[in-house]
C-alpha cells in the first residue's frame, strides 16, 4: 500500500544524520512513491470498510504525489540555507505525515478515519507554517492556522456528531442510502461544509488564507495552496457525490451561492495586493471558487473536470510559487514592484512566471485554459449558464491582476532590477516539470481521457 511506502521514508529519515543526504533521499523516495503509485493496484477495503481504495482514489493520491514530488524538487534550494540546518528532516517528516493524512482522508470509508486523516493533515502544516522560527510573522501564521483550523475542525466534528446522532452510523455506504432531510441533518451538513470550506478556503471561511500564506515560508504556502487544498477538494467531492447524495438539490444551491461569492471576493481582493504571496493567496481563493463549478454538476463529467483542473492547478501554481520561491531564496524579494524589469535580467524565470499566470487565468494554449473550459462545461451541463457567465466574467477580472504581474516583469522599467542569478539543478528540474506540465497536460488529451475513465458521477 501507498501509506506503507510513506512510513518507510519516515524511518529512513530518522536514521540519517547527514543533511544533504536527507534532501536527496527524500527527493528520490518521493519520485519512487509517485512512480509506484501508478502501478495498478487492486481495489479493496480494509478495517471492515473503514479504509477503501479504488482506481479513482488511487488516481487522486497520485495527483497529490506528483505535486509533492515537484515541491520537493523546488524546496531543496531553500532548505539548504544555514538557518534551517537542524530541522531539515522535520520538514520532510511533517510534509509526509500530512500527505499520509490526506491519503487517509481520501481513502476513508468512515467519518472516524476521515477525521483522523484530517487532523493528521492539518496540525503538521501549522508547525510548517511556523517553520521560520526567527520571524514573528511566520510564528503568527502558525498560530493563526492552528487556531482557526482547530475551530473549523470543532465545527465539523459537531456536524458529524449530529449526523451520527440522527442516522446512527458513520459508514459512508450506510449514510448514502439514508434520507437526510430533517432540519437538524441539514444543519449538520452545513456545519460539516463549513469545516471543509475552511480547508479549501472558500469565502466566508477564507480569512486565514492571506495572512498564513504571507507569513509562512513560500514553499509551505505553495503546499497549502495546492496539495492541501487539492486533497480537501477531492474528499469533499467524494462525500457530496455519495454521502450527501440525498440532499443534492440543497447543496447545489449552497454551492451556487458560495461559488459566486468565493470567485468574486477572491478576485476583488487580489486586485489590490502588492505582496506576491498574498496576491497568490487571493488568486487561489478565486480558483477554489471555480472548482465548485465542477462539483455542482454532480456527474462523472464534473468529477473528471475537477481532477483534471486540480492536476493542472498543481503544475501551474507550483510554477508560479516556484518562481516566487526561487527569487525569494536568491534575493529575499517578494514585492510586486521588485519584479519590475525582471525579464531583462532573468528572462527564463519571467517566461515561466508569465506562462503560469496565463495558465491560472485560463489563456490558451497553456493547460489552464483546458482546465477552466472543462469546469465551465461541467457547470453548463447542468444548465447553470448564468453561473458560468459570472465565472467567466470573474476569469476576465482575474486576468487583469495576472496581467499586472506580467506588465511588471515585461513592460515596467526598473533602474535596479533583480540581478541575474542561476538557481541550482533541483530547482530547475522542479520548474522544468511545471513548465512541461503546463504545456503537455492541456494539449495532450490522453491525460484527460485517463482521468475521465475513472471518474464516477452521482
Amino acid at each position, binding site marked *: 500500500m501507498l501509506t506503507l511506502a510513506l512510513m518507510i521514508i519516515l524511518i529512513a529519515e530518522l536514521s540519517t544524520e547527514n543533511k544533504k543526504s536527507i534532501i536527496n533521499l527524500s527527493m528520490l523516495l518521493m519520485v519512487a512513491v509517485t512512480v509506484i503509485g501508478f502501478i495498478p493496484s487492486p481495489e479493496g477495503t480494509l478495517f471492515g470498510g473503514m479504509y477503501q481504495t479504488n482506481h479513482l482514489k488511487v488516481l487522486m493520491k497520485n495527483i497529490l504525489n506528483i505535486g509533492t514530488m515537484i515541491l520537493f524538487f523546488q524546496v531543496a534550494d531553500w532548505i539548504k540555507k544555514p538557518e534551517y540546518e537542524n530541522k531539515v528532516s522535520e520538514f520532510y517528516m511533517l510534509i509526509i505525515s500530512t500527505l499520509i493524512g490526506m491519503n487517509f482522508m481520501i481513502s476513508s470509508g468512515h467519518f472516524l478515519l476521515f477525521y483522523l486523516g484530517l487532523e493528521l493533515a492539518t496540525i503538521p502544516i501549522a508547525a510548517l507554517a511556523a517553520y521560520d522560527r526567527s520571524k514573528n510573522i511566520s510564528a503568527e501564521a502558525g498560530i493563526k492556522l492552528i487556531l482557526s483550523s482547530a475551530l473549523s475542525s470543532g465545527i465539523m466534528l459537531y456536524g458529524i456528531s449530529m449526523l451520527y446522532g440522527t442516522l446512527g452510523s458513520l459508514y459512508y455506504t450506510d449514510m448514502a442510502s439514508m434520507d437526510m432531510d430533517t432540519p437538524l441533518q441539514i444543519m449538520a451538513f452545513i456545519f460539516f461544509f463549513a469545516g471543509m470550506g475552511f480547508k479549501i478556503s472558500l469565502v466566508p471561511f477564507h480569512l486565514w488564507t492571506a495572512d498564513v500564506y504571507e507569513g509562512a515560508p513560500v514553499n509551505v504556502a505553495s503546499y497549502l495552496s495546492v496539495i492541501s487544498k487539492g486533497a480537501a477538494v477531492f474528499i469533499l467531492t467524494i462525500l457530496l457525490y455519495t454521502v450527501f447524495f440525498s440532499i443534492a438539490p440543497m447543496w447545489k444551491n449552497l454551492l451556487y451561492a458560495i461559488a459566486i461569492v468565493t470567485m468574486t471576493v477572491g478576485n476583488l481582493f487580489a486586485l489590490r495586493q502588492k505582496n506576491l504571496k498574498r496576491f497568490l493567496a487571493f488568486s487561489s481563493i478565486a480558483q477554489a471558487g471555480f472548482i465548485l463549478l465542477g462539483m455542482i454538476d454532480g456527474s462523472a463529467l464534473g468529477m473528471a473536470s475537477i481532477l483534471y483542473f486540480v492536476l493542472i492547478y498543481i503544475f501551474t501554481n507550483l510554477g508560479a510559487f516556484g518562481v516566487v520561491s526561487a527569487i525569494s531564496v536568491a534575493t529575499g524579494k517578494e514585492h510586486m514592484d521588485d519584479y519590475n524589469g525582471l525579464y531583462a535580467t532573468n528572462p527564463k524565470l519571467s517566461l515561466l512566471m508569465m506562462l503560469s499566470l496565463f495558465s491560472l487565468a485560463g489563456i490558451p494554449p497553456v493547460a489552464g485554459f483546458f482546465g477552466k473550459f472543462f469546469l*465551465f462545461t461541467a457547470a*453548463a451541463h447542468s444548465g447553470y449558464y448564468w453561473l458560468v*457567465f459570472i465565472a467567466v*466574467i470573474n476569469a*476576465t477580472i482575474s486576468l487583469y491582476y495576472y496581467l499586472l504581474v506580467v*506588465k511588471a516583469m515585461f*513592460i515596467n522599467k526598473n533602474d535596479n532590477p533583480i540581478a541575474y542569478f542561476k538557481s541550482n539543478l533541483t530547482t530547475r528540474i522542479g520548474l522544468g516539470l511545471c513548465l512541461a506540465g503546463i504545456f503537455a497536460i492541456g494539449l495532450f488529451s490522453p491525460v*484527460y*481521457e485517463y482521468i475521465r475513465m475513472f471518474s464516477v458521477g452521482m
Partner: protein
Amino acid sequence: MDFLTLFVVVPVLTIVGIVFTRDMKQTRLVSAIGMGIQLILAVTLVFMYLAERKAGNTAEMLFSHSYVWFESLNITYSIGVDGISVAMIMLTAIVVFTGVFASWNVKHLPREFFISLIFLSSGVFGFFISIDLFTMFLFYEVAVIPMFLLIGIWGTGPKEYSAMKLTLMLMGGSALLLVGLLGIYFNSNAGGGDLTFNILEISKVKIPMQAQRMFFPMTFIGFGVLGALFPFHTWSPDGHASAPTAVSMLHAGVLMKLGGYGAFRVAIFLLPDAAQEMSWFFLILTGISVVYGAFGAIHQKDLKYINAYSSVSHCGLVLFAILMMNKTALDGAILQMISHGLMTALFFALIGMIYGRTHTRMINELGGLMKIMPVLSVSYVIAGLASLGLPGLSGFVAEMTIFFGSFQHSDAFHRILTISAAASIVITAVYILRVVGQILYGPVKNDNYLKLSDARWYERVSTGVLIFAIAGIGVAPLWLSNMINESLNPIVHQIMQVLIK
C-alpha cells in the same frame, strides 16, 4: 499531415527558428522567410481551391480533416475551408507578410516582437481553418493575448492603459462567447445525435428557439466586441493608436475580421431563427457604429485615431451587412472585410512610415509631404481613395454590394437604416480628403522635413503588395465574388428556411 494544418505549423516553426537567431537582422530574415512561405501557401491554397471547385467538388468544406482530440466530450480538431475562409486566409497572409516588412527596424527586443507577432498570426490562421467551435475558440484567444505584450512593450503613447483596456475588453467579449458556445454545444443534440462542437453538424440541427434566444446575443456580442460593435468599440481607437505599426495593421486589418467572420459563421449560421428575430436591435447598434465611427474620425487630429475610428465605421458596416441576411449583403460583407483589411493595413503601414520619419502623427504639424516623399504620399492617396469607395478600387465593390443588398429589404426600417449608413460614405470622403489635403499638399510645415527620405526598399515591398491586392480586387472583383458567393449558399439556405416558416 494535411495541407491546412501547415498554416499553423509554419508560423510555429518560424517561431522556433526565431528563438535560435542572434540579432535583429537574422530575426527579421527568418520572419520574412517564414511569412513568405505562408504567403506562397495561401496563394497555392487559392488555386487548389479553385481547381477543386472546377473539378466539380461541391462539398461545403474542402480539404477537411478531423482528428479526435478529447474523445469523451466529442471535441475534435476539425479543419476545412470554403471560399470565404480561403479569402480570409489570403488576406491574413498578405497582411502578416507586409507587416513583417513594415516592422523591419524594430530595435527594442526584436526577437520577442516577431515571436509575438507571428504567434498572433498563427492564432488567426488557426481560427479561419477550424470548423470545430472548441478549436475555433482556442485559436481566437491565442490571437488576442499576444496583443497585450505587443502594445504594452512596443507601443507608443498611453500604451499600458491601451494594452490593458484592449485585452480586458476582448477577453470580456470572449467570456460571453464561451457561454454562448457552451450553450450551443449542449443543445447540439436536439436532433437526437451526439453532442458536438462541429459547425457543420450543428448547422443540420434545429436548436430549440428558447436556447437560440439566449445564446444568439451572447455569441453575436462576443464576436461583435472584436468587430467593434457599438458600444463595445472603445478599445479600438486607443488600441490602434498605441500599437506599433505592424500590430495596428494586423489588428485592424485582420483581427477585427475575426469578429465579423465569427458573427456570421457561428451566430447567424448556427442560430438563424433568433438572428432573424433579434436582428433589428443589432442593426440599430451597428448602424450607430457606422455613423458614429465616421463622425468620430472627423474630429480626430491624430492620423492613427482617424483610421481607428474609420475602422470602427467600416467594421460596423460589415456587421451591418451580415445582419441584413441576404445573399448580396453577405457577399458585400465578406468583400468589405477583405477590402477594409487590405486598405487599413496599407493606411497603418504608411502612417507608421511617416511617423518614423517625422515623429509626429498630428495632421496640423504635417504638410507638403508629397514633395518630400512622393512614393509614400501617392500610396496614401490610393489608400484614401479605396477607403472612400472610388470605383476601380476594392472599397467601391464592397460598399456597393452591401448597400445594394440592404436595399432589397423593402420595409421602411431597413430602408432608413440603409440610407443613413450609406450617408457615412460622404462623411468618409470628408475626413479622408481633408487629411490628404492637409498632410500631402500645401507648404512644408517644418524645414527639418525637407531632409527626410522617401520609401526604402522594404517599405516599398510592404506597400506595393498591398496596393497590388487592393487594385486587383477593384479591377477584377468577379473571381473573388464568385468564390464567396458559392460558399454563401449553405448560410443563405439556413436563413431561407427560417423565412419560409
